[in-house]
């Protein structure tokens, strides 16, 4: 028996929790929210103006002007907006009868000039940062974003394709291991977050993109579909892992209850570092109940204790849900290779009464 039981990774899968999430622009811009402001999922909390193209060119080479002469030939300066075809720099030629000019290829702004080099930002549509989590702004980071506090159901996944969106959950009445195919999609898919069971097909990913689905939540994803999932506009969230893994019963059952509700899907995935983030689906508490629950205590992180829910994080337990039994203890387990690993008995919930000794590091705490 090992007396001290260390922490294991946590995954938040909860029908009701209170969270704080920072919504942040990739580039500095304008923040439209203020502390205390209630925001809906689709409200814009910040807006940036990233360039479509960042044009970099040597003015010396473009019109043959010496570096020292660049300042006096410039008609525009750093920070100046330019219209399409507007002249940025001009040099007299042929005894001053004619001039050689460089015109802005499109509307934009001069971002920098250093020596003979100019960086010209070509305008693009503004980039909006949606609130995504319906709740209240509790903190603002000037020029970058806002922190939102929200209450509702939260399902974290293990992998996300990037991107985020808001939509209505569409749960297909299938089993947790069913593969969702394009044939199941109808014209009303637009704006829906599709809940697949065990997996999706390539055709489903493409069709969901065509029909402008708001997101896809799937138990697992075939490894060869990862590139496709990352290339479409629809955010894809994987709850269990890669391969053919049924969606865990806890996630599946929770999603079935939430069917038809508005949700925010944040499929951004950064496994390491200061901005490490797990992909997640958030279903805000109905507005009518929001007021009452504002005073609710901050949601607690799941704890290692008897009855705590755990999920297998490694084959052959991957995706299986179980509980830690009464008076569970950490004990040594010998593997086939002869290694001793700390392990704990788990009561699997998918097969009645099955108790199994599982390496502690191969479990994650859920709740």
């Amino acid at each position, binding site marked *: 028996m090992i007396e*001290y039981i*260390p922490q294991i990774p946590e995954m938040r899968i909860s029908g009701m929790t209170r969270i704080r999430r920072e919504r942040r622009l990739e580039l500095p811009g304008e923040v439209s929210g203020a502390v205390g402001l209630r925001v809906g999922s689709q409200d814009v909390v910040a807006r940036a103006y990233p360039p479509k193209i960042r044009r970099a060119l*040597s003015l010396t080479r473009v019109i043959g002007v010496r570096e020292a002469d660049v300042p006096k030939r410039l008609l525009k300066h750093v920070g100046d907006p330019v219209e399409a075809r507007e002249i940025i720099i001009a040099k007299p030629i042929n005894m001053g009868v004619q001039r050689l000019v460089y015109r802005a290829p499109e509307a934009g702004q001069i971002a920098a000039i250093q020596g003979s080099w100019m960086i010209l930002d070509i305008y693009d549509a503004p980039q909006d940062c949606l609130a995504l989590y319906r709740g209240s702004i509790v903190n603002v980071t000037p020029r970058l974003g806002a922190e939102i506090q929200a209450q509702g159901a939260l399902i974290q996944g293990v992998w996300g394709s990037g991107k985020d969106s808001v939509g209505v959950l569409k749960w297909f009445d299938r089993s947790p291991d069913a593969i969702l195919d394009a044939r199941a999609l109808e014209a009303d898919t637009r704006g829906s977050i599709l809940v697949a069971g065990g997996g999706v097909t390539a055709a489903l990913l493409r069709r969901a993109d065509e029909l402008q689905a708001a997101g896809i939540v799937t138990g697992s994803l075939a490894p060869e579909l990862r590139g496709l999932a990352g290339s479409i506009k629809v955010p894809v969230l994987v709850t269990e892992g890669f391969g053919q893994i049924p969606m865990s019963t806890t996630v599946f059952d929770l999603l079935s209850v939430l069917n038809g509700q508005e949700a925010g899907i944040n499929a951004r995935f950064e496994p390491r*570092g200061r901005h490490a983030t797990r992909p997640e689906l958030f279903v805000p508490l109905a507005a009518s109940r929001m007021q009452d629950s504002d005073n609710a205590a901050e949601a607690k992180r799941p704890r290692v204790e008897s009855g705590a829910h755990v999920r297998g*994080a490694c084959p052959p337990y991957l995706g299986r849900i179980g509980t830690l039994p009464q008076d569970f203890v950490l004990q040594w387990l010998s593997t086939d290779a002869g290694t001793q690993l700390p392990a704990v008995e788990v009561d699997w919930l998918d097969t009645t009464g099955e108790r199994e000794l599982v*390496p502690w590091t191969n479990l994650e705490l859920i709740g």
Partner: protein
Amino acid sequence: MADSPTSILVADVGSAATKVGLVDLVSGEYRLVGATRTMSTVDAPNEDLMIGVRQGIMQLEALTGRRLLDAKNALIRPTRLDGDGSDAFVAVTSAALPLHAVVIGLSRDYSVACAGQAVNSTFAIVDHTIAVDEESGRWGTTASDGRAGGASAAVEKLATLKPDLVVMVGGIDGGAVAPLREMANIVAAVGAAMDEDSRPFVIFAGNHMARGDVVERIGGLMQVSVVDNVLPALDRANPGPLQAEIENLYRKRRIERLPGFDKLAAWAEKGVMTTADAFTRVTEYLARKYQLRVLGVDLGAGATTMVRADGNRTQRAVVEEESVGYGLDALLERTGIETIMRWLPTPLEAAEVHAGLLNQSVRPQAVPTRWQDTTALNAAGREILMHTADVWHDQLRSQEFGATNGHAQAGFADSDLVLLSGAPVARGSKPTSLLLMLLDALQVRGIFSVAADNAGLAAAMGAVAAVNSEAAAQALENDCLVTWGTVFVPDVVARAGEPLALVAHVEPARGGKLEADVKLGSLELIPLGEGEKANVELRAGRGVSWGPSARGNIFKREVQGGTVGVMIDARGRPLPMDENMDRQRERMQRWMWEAGA
């Protein structure tokens, strides 16, 4: 050494796991009296590496029955009369993310290649390179519209990236300065267009005559440091100063910004070393003490380190992008699953293996226990080792630009001791499986010993040496390193009709005799237990030799046994791989069977 601490608490904070151990005097010798392994807590939701360190210490307390933390979770220091506490605390870490770099230089084949190799083999990843000589109009012809004098696509890519670091190189010392001024203008323009907070750090490692111009043009916008030219002459590379500066930057911008680092540093009086530096020290120590050429390999969850030390010279490559944890994703991107499948026996399925490796990359703390999962990870490990060896060799070659001393060709093939550390050992793969992985991936030949870092704390002993070198050496040899045995890899020239590569006579010191016929293209595993010695006589067949240093066809040596024993690898190098995947996997199955993997 009257003032040296005798009980030393040691922590290795990795990207996925935190290892903690206690070194203390036991019957007059320093021993590792306990070691634990818990998950690292650097990233969200914990965002404090000290949580993992304290958990490791608490688990150690439970294992040893010795209190190491007080009621306020602070270290009990020094050791009390009742035995609780420790005298010193040392720490190493590999939990920080690498720096992302762009290399910009005058010549693709010289300065950019040389600097790229230098950057890639330390704590950074090169995301983009720009070389002037590729653009006939100098900076102009990679324009998207193809017109000379148009915008530069290469520079535009730099402007869209958000590197942590820009490495500027080019020109031999005393050469032309004008092209470097223009390069400085580009970097300055790109930096000026960025938000002030996200501007990269710039290291100039080019022609020393251009330093003033570069600093003048860039210094007002971005932080610049100047180091010795990475290529001072066309036949002489000098990557050391650039790498040292990158390591300095990595420490300041990555390690010291790890959440909880300040508390860890406050505990560790001698500072916190990088795991790679500490591992390098250990490799150098073994090379010096035993007069050996030592090859150290650390397959971490977040990075891979390869160090070769021979007492006079140390050469290291740290590959941050590919690893047996988080870096499996990058490995699969580079090689594809089929390349990894060639190292697997039948009947494993590609899709299942691919999924398993991706799952390990998103949950690197998990410890696979099924044979098929560890075998797939070891297959991936082979590719990572081969890539790291390439980076190591590239760096060696770049340092010896134009040199004709032949050292670059030799590389680490003549190593006497191979030391394996990292996640595969910690995960508990069979030693024979891991030894086969090493033999397949590294082109080490001749006769060498293999040892493994079973406690996962060998690197940390490099940091222990800073407070008590005797304790580090004894704990390392007594408890951290486990000898796997001795390996014979002869040079084999395959000839039709000569199936027998060599005959091995083994006489263990405990008595008895063993004879084995080793066929061409096969492996032979001869059991010889830990601490056992045996006289081995190898009679080489035709076309089999032990390299230029050993003449004659009979070779005799006393060898040491270990967890694995004595392995004879008569497959020849390079390994005979079959292009037909089915046959290759059958071959792999046979090799694994012969090696007991």
